[in-house]
């Protein structure tokens, strides 16, 4: 018994290892593509040059040893230092070689300095600006997607039980609503609940000024979360529930389900053991694809709701033409997409028996 458990664990580990390598490779490609696109206009070079110049100018200004120099001498000295530093970092090498340097920098989140934006703590480091905004994005997206997943699952199951009923038809009729993205429903929700009914805030993450008390802070956050999460859920729920329902229906017409029925098992038990279990891998693959789309919708949804996350940072950076932040943000997004897929792969590996039996051959 023990040996078997261990081997299925090691199979999962092996499967996850393969996926990890693949996803890491994807991130590398995504980031490299980002660099190539960004540097077609020499923007990445400029980001690096800016960082070098600022660093050296600061160093010279601080150092007592250079106090005596005239401004002209100082400028000449700074120019020379910049030249040496650029040579040292290889900025005068051909682009192919340089691009790999950028790639390493980007992958290690060494994202340079912002031109116009600053983090709330006052730093101009792009990495700090973006990491500071990550929690806000994760709170909203994590919550919305958890609710979305379980609600779709629940509705899908309920509909597959009541196949052909009025409710079933109603959800089918509502599936076209998923052709509009979440931000679009966000607009309508703001209009109804914030502008007309005035019961919920227009946007933002907490009241201004933020409450000191933790409980009140939490309540205020919850109040601000209602509309954006609802928008995400409405935007995807009906099509998602419809898809799951179809999966459930396909699996509940299998012979072994008939067999279980004949054995006299209760409906709940049949559902849990013979319908839900084999359907889950499909559902998770489906959900992973949905999440990739939803992540990208975050950019605009946060803009509409004034949510201080990564998407909003994009909007601000576009407005200020802050290229370093835009490139850095794209890199973070490549990572986030890969991490999301990796987490779902893990769930997949756990629920799909094929992974445990055959190792990496489960498909993804």
């Amino acid at each position, binding site marked *: 018994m023990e040996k078997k458990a261990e081997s299925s664990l090691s199979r999962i580990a092996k499967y996850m290892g393969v996926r990890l390598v693949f996803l890491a490779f994807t991130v590398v490609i995504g980031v490299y593509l980002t660099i190539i696109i960004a540097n077609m206009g020499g923007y990445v070079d400029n980001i690096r040059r800016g960082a070098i110049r600022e660093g050296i100018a600061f160093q010279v200004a601080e150092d007592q040893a250079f106090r005596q120099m005239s401004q002209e001498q100082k400028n000449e000295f700074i120019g020379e230092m910049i030249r040496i530093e650029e040579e040292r970092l290889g900025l005068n090498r051909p682009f192919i070689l340089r691009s790999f340097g950028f790639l390493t920098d980007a992958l290690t989140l060494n994202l340079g300095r912002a031109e116009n934006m600053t983090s709330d703590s006052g730093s101009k480091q792009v990495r700090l600006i973006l990491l500071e905004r990550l929690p806000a994005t994760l709170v909203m997206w994590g919550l919305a997607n958890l609710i979305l997943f379980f609600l779709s699952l629940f509705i899908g199951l309920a509909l597959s039980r009541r196949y052909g009923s009025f409710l079933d038809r109603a959800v089918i009729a509502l599936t076209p609503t998923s052709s509009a993205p979440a931000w679009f429903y966000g607009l309508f929700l703001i209009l109804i609940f914030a502008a007309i009914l005035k019961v919920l805030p227009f946007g933002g993450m907490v009241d201004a000024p933020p409450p000191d008390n933790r409980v009140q802070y939490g309540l205020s956050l919850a109040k601000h979360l209602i509309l954006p999460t609802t928008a995400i859920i409405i935007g995807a729920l009906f099509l998602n529930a419809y898809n799951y329902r179809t999966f459930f229906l396909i699996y509940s017409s299998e012979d072994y389900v008939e067999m279980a029925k004949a054995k006299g098992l209760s409906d709940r038990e049949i559902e849990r053991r013979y319908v839900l279990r084999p359907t889950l891998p499909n559902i998770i693959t489906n959900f992973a694809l949905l999440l990739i789309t939803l992540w990208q919708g975050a950019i605009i949804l946060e803009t509409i709701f004034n949510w201080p996350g990564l998407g909003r940072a*994009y909007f601000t950076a576009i407005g200020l033409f802050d290229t370093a932040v835009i*490139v850095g943000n794209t890199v973070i997004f490549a990572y986030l997409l890969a991490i999301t897929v990796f987490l779902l792969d893990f769930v997949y590996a756990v629920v799909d028996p094929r992974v445990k039996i055959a190792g990496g051959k489960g498909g993804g």
Partner: protein
Amino acid sequence: MSGLKRTLKEIRRYPSAIAGVAIIVLLIGIAIYAMVTIPYSEAIRLWRGGEDVWYKTPKNARPLWSNWLSTTKLPPTIVQNSREGDVEKSVEVVDAEKNMIDITFDFVFDYAYDDFPREITVFFEADYVEKPPYLSLVWLTPDGREIRVGDFTASRSGSYRVSQDQKLQRRLGGLLPHVGLFADPESEEPAPLQGTYTLQVSGLVFEEGADVDAELVMYGQVHGLAGTDHLRRDLMVALLWGTPIALAFGLLAAVGTTVTTLVIAAVSTWFGGWVDEIIQRVTEVNLILPLLPILIMVGTFYSRSIWLMLGVIILLSIFGAGIKTYRAVFLQVKESPYIEAARAYGAGDMRIVLRYLVPRIIPLLVPQLVILVPTFVFTEASLAVLGLGDPTLPTWGKVMNEAYNGGALYQGLYYWVMEPAVLLMLTGLAFALVGFSLDRIFNPRLRGV
């Protein structure tokens, strides 16, 4: 041909598909109407023209139909021009020796609205050689009061912004002129007095043959069927012209991405082996690439042109998710006897892929293509909402972006956001309705469940 007929017959069984088709036909109608009635150059001029194109329209005016929904009737813009014969000019010689002639005319209009106009401006033009005429404006209210509005020396062409006349504002007891001139003196809260108003313009000219003309523009709070934005532009232009742009973008992107995906999938299955392996892996990588961020970078760094965005979208979707679905079907088709027959008569690889494999997948492809249209329509709108809309074209997304930046929802200017939003929603819904129905017709496997 009979296949098409059968499909059309089947579609009729789905009421949602009929609704979808009806909306699409309506949208195409709007698109054609827009392109015919407002030629492209005219649309660009109306949208980007500047103050001289929009000077007669009010800022942030609601659409006319908002008056039907509300009990307070908001005033439209009232324009009267002495040059266009809206008023009768009377000429009276004051001093024949000094050539002093008084040219007077009255702008008379009925005011039966429950709110004040937004602004009042008098534009004037004067013909003279040396000595400019002297204009005085007097306001007559329905209850017989006479208010001196302003006296000034006219230049050859200029405007007198009544609403910004501080002296007049003081004379009216501190009320803004466009409020004070209409306010009922009896009522405590400023409310407009309804009835017939007159603005008397008298221009004293000092030369023979000199003349003055004036145009009274009282900017209202409602305008046209679509309302106006913060730059006085009639939103109708953007709403009309947004339709062909949205449809063209959505359709081209959907066709472009599906066709390329299809060909790649066919090549992948036909050649198999390492070609298939590579295409499979590239597809998996491509699925996880952040498409929207890449579009944002292209938009920020290079060009916001809608056609460049279209190109990038198609380029990045060549290895799209569709490949997996199409590949599954192609794998089945590949084993069919007629493919073997084609191979037997010596057909080349490309010939088999393009002539025998690709056509077989059309039934699966068409619904997919139709369902994809809204995705791209919304992608374009999303980019515009982020401020990366095409710099010249008026699109729905750009209207929404400007409305958002102008705080339309905070200020209660709901029409500004909702008009483009409703059009977007109609477009998305129509294509989705048709697409889902087609999917059920072409893929009857799903019809049962």
